[in-house]
């Protein structure tokens, strides 16, 4: 019976398609900079596939979610944001800085793995910031986490919500902490001022940690 059940379970699959999330307008002071935003190609069609416990295939299609998410987030954070393609040469454009987000890792867990009712999603973004001379001045890993309980709507709905919560968690962290590791506000519109460049592979020291409202400075 056990073997039969395992055979039936093998090859089971679930597919989740995520609609682009909407971030509420944040309560923050806009950073007075004009930035370029260059997103990687996979932000337009990000798909994560994973086999859970060796028998259940999950496919999470984030589609354009990351592209929409970062355009909206940085649109709220900076005075002017211009999305540039990978083919564009940002050195000839009048930006104060160029921001290049990417995904380092995407992971999730399902209730079978954790023996709870929860779906959880972890996303590690990487934010690179280049100054107006094209020097890499920031290389910041941003770890985000979202969790959602299974409901009568089923697991797919909960996994979608967990992914959206993880993106929202990343947004909250970036809004509150962006200036600490990036010192981006020091890249003023004054063309003589620049942030200190970092080596390729070097990382900003600020990590994603749980913050209390009283210690987020």
């Amino acid at each position, binding site marked *: 019976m056990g073997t039969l059940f395992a055979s039936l379970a093998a090859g089971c699959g679930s597919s989740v398609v995520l609609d682009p999330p909407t971030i509420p307008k*944040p309560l923050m002071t806009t950073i007075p900079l004009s930035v370029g935003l260059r997103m990687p190609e996979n932000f337009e069609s990000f798909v994560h596939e994973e086999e859970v416990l060796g028998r259940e295939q999950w496919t999470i299609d984030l589609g354009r979610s990351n592209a929409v998410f970062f355009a909206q987030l940085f649109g709220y954070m900076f005075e002017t944001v211009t999305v540039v393609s990978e083919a564009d040469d940002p050195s000839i454009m009048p930006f104060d800085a160029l921001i290049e987000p990417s995904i380092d890792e995407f992971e999730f867990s399902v209730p079978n793995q954790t023996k709870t009712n929860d779906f959880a999603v972890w996303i590690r973004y990487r934010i690179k910031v280049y100054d107006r001379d094209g020097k890499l001045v920031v290389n910041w890993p941003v770890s985000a986490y979202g969790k959602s309980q299974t409901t009568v709507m089923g697991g797919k709905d909960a996994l979608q919500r967990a992914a959206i919560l993880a993106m929202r968690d990343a947004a909250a962290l970036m809004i509150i902490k962006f200036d600490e590791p990036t010192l981006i506000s020091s890249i003023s519109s004054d063309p003589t001022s620049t942030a200190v460049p970092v080596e390729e592979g070097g990382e900003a020291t600020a990590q994603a940690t749980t913050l209390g409202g*009283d210690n987020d400075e």
Partner: protein
Amino acid sequence: MNELWSSTVAYRLTLVCALLGVGAGCVTSRVEDAREGITGIASDESVVIMAKSYHLGNETEAKYIACIENALARGSKGLRVIPHKQFVDSLFPWFEPRTAPTETKGLPKLMERPGVAAQIHEQGVRYIIWLEGDTEKVAGGGSLSCAAGPGGGGCFGFAWWQNASDYNASVWDLEGLESAGTVSADVSGTSFLPALVVPIPLIARTQAAACKGLANQLRAFIISDELT
């Protein structure tokens, strides 16, 4: 003022055990509060129910939060409840699981953030109620087996399980930016499933009892029924 009320503790203990064919198991319920300050609420003031962050390991169920919201708003003495999603969105990113204040001492600084005090004032939020806790199966046993054949089917046996619903609510007063006190509900109950051909479930609805008990006590705590 806090010292005046710090030792005031209200305590209720009830035992409900209905096995008379109404489909309910036994439930033991204990609801208590510990007051730290004088409360009260005006008709144009509101409350928000929030779950403590899952970043801190809290597992409060979304349906329990919704249950408390509905129970507090219901009836002639119902409070004005702002849906927590509306509140969190309007104050983004300051009440996200990662960023929400964990202690009242963080409130003065939070209120200085751009737009935060104005948003809270606009919605008339007087109290934030932080929920933590969950419902867990703590024990179980018995055995039940079912079989079906061409002539019909049936079950035989007896199973039982015990659930514990333990929830705690911390009430923050945004007028004084201080804690007003806590209310807690600890409910345990045993459900039974005897089967002689047909299973007859006698379910102890501990989470529903914890919702009703906590909401009633919270309402009394906030409108200070006990003081008048």
